[in-house]
């Protein structure tokens, strides 16, 4: 089981756990729907492997690896 969103493999689904980001970024990530308990799926990656595109609450959002790593996955 991947420990954080950046390690979630292409095509895998998971449930969001804690958000390790603080301040502005924390608020922004949660505001996008990355709240604890939300489902998330990694859809595809950019040619360089970073950023990756995630399905979050019906929308496809690209996150850079450094930021996705701050989103822990449940269990």
């Amino acid at each position, binding site marked *: 089981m991947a420990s954080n969103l950046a390690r979630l493999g292409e095509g895998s689904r998971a449930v969001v756990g804690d958000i390790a980001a603080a301040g*502005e*970024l*924390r*608020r*922004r*990530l*949660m*505001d*996008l*729907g990355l*709240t*604890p308990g*939300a489902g998330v*799926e990694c*859809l*595809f*990656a*950019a*040619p*360089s*492997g*970073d*950023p990756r*595109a995630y*399905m*979050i*609450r*019906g*929308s*496809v*959002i*690209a*996150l*850079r690896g*450094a*930021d996705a790593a701050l989103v822990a996955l449940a269990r």
Partner: protein
Amino acid sequence: MGLTLRSVGKNAASDAKDDLRSDITVALAGNPNVGKSTVFNALTGLRQHTGNWSGKTVVTARGYYDYKGRTVAVTDIPGAYSLRASSAEEEAARDYIAFGGADLTVVVCDAGALERNLNLALQILELTPNVILAVNLMDEAKKRGIAVDTGALSRVLGVPVIPMAARRGRGVEELRAAIDGFTPPPFAYTVRYGEDVERAAAGLEMALENVLKGRLGARYTALRLLEGDGRALENINGHLGFDVPSHPDVAPALEKARAELNNAGVENISDRLISGIYSAATGLCRECVSGGSGYGEGQLRIDRLLTRKATGIPVMLLLLALIFFITVKGANAPSDWLYALFERIGAVLSQGLAALGVPKAVHDALILGVWRVLSYVVSVMLPPMAIFFPMFTLLEDLGYLPRVAFNLDSGFRKAGACGKQCLTMAMGFGCNAAGVVGCRIIDSKRERLIAVLTNSLVPCNGRFPILIALITMFLVAGSGVGSSLLAALALTGFIILGAGATLAVSRVLSRTILKGEASSPTLELPPFRRPKIGEVVVRSLLDRTLFVLGRAAAVAAPAGLLIWLAANLRVGDTTVLAAVTGALDPVGRFLGLDGVILTAFILGLPANETVIPIIIMAYAASGTFEGYENLDSLRALLTQNGWTWVTALCTGVFTVLHWPCTTTLLTVKKETGSVKWTALAALIPTAAGAILCALIAHILG
């Protein structure tokens, strides 16, 4: 493309309450890329440019329509995911809804991503109950197997919910009727954040009720006070004219509420509020939305093709080259035809002037100066643009541009910049001034400034045809399909040069005067949408055609006169133009150009469209532009004046990399409010171009 001057130039909307023209004022809110601009256009009949990517509306626009004898003013406010402003646009959206004085707010939602869209809608409902929910893109959602029960949603929320497919005109009449018949709802849905938070908030809400006197929602204000949202509070205080948290009736209640939260063990109230809204949204969707979760298989396959390591970048370059190929191949015939037409009209005008007995000097200035330059600009500039822009707009409407930003983000990250800069570069293709305004979509101030300073490194529509002419005259011989293909590749090369320069300069800026780490941008990749081909073609053709023609008349005509005068007025035994070009010749030669070319770029400051006609006029012995008839005669003239393919290459490089036009510079000044940054916006590309040209000239020349 992108933002035309039309939409950029629209007056930023002031407060709705100052609007005396209308009977009802409506604020149009919504997440980015939910078709807000389409709804706006459908309601008001205005042609706000729409595109399939987030952040199209960087300026608020206002439009009007009449319904049953009443005038309705609609303000299109910037798209926002949330009112917890993390960008200037979100802040603007929040302040407009809170303090703009609109009678009601229409929240446009994407039926396919209702859960996330409800995040914004529920926050707005906290601010005001006077809301209509327009659930747009119902048709698209249906294709993905998603159905929204708008009736049920309306019953739960207590406000009107209108299903729409605005692109097909569905739901527009219903929305108009709902706006017309709107009355403040007797009850509207309120998000509950749990016993502990509610108990703490209740007392504060009551205290605020008396202080605010209906000027602002007490619940909304109470939650912001508890959250300690500094920026929101600053605005609340500013608009109300007093410091709310320290008001004698509020301060004790606030202290008590905070203590209660503490006792209840609520550590991070902000987290609780965000999670609370999303749980509510999840609950609402469970009740009112059925089917479809996840991404369509076909969509995913296309996305993987467009973003894979092996195919992502090659497909992007191929698409670009293909568009250029069609442009180069298709523009030839109409250019010749237009020029011949202008020649014929010019001959008639010439006879007319002669018949009127106009002095020869005036006749020559008008026909050989003004008319010839105008002919060139229109006939050479217009066809490539009329072909390029509809195709580019199709890609844009399809939703391809955010994928490009996604693919190239790592390059921008390494340069300490934001992948969304790609989107502003794409706007720069159309017009750098529009591109500079478009930089507002970048949240980080530092990264926005980088994007502003580098925008003109992407050649705009005034410079494209210069490149095409140079390529077809000197860099690629012949006129068959093969050479058109080569020409397209060469043009792609110039774009890669501009993009490479953008990355390099961004990198240097990030390490020197604009030091800083890359921020954490989030980029939405919208679902692909089938563009409405007919509409796109007509719209971009008309917009472009009118724009180029207008510009030609406004700038090229006076420029033609000026150049004719400079080429014919004599100082001693030389003309003014010859004196200037002679003085600049050493510098020009050093850059692989010559004095004439450099002078043309300087005189082309108001509009790059005039660069080539100036070059031709200066070379032509009589000081008049003899007309180009075809590119062969033009090549002959240039070759006589010492041009080689290296000259053409250097001129091409300098076309991409030199100072931006005056309109763009004025826009940079306006956006940055700084003479220093404006000067840098001119200096940086010029320095890059000068260095590169000098290198090319000395290695190849």
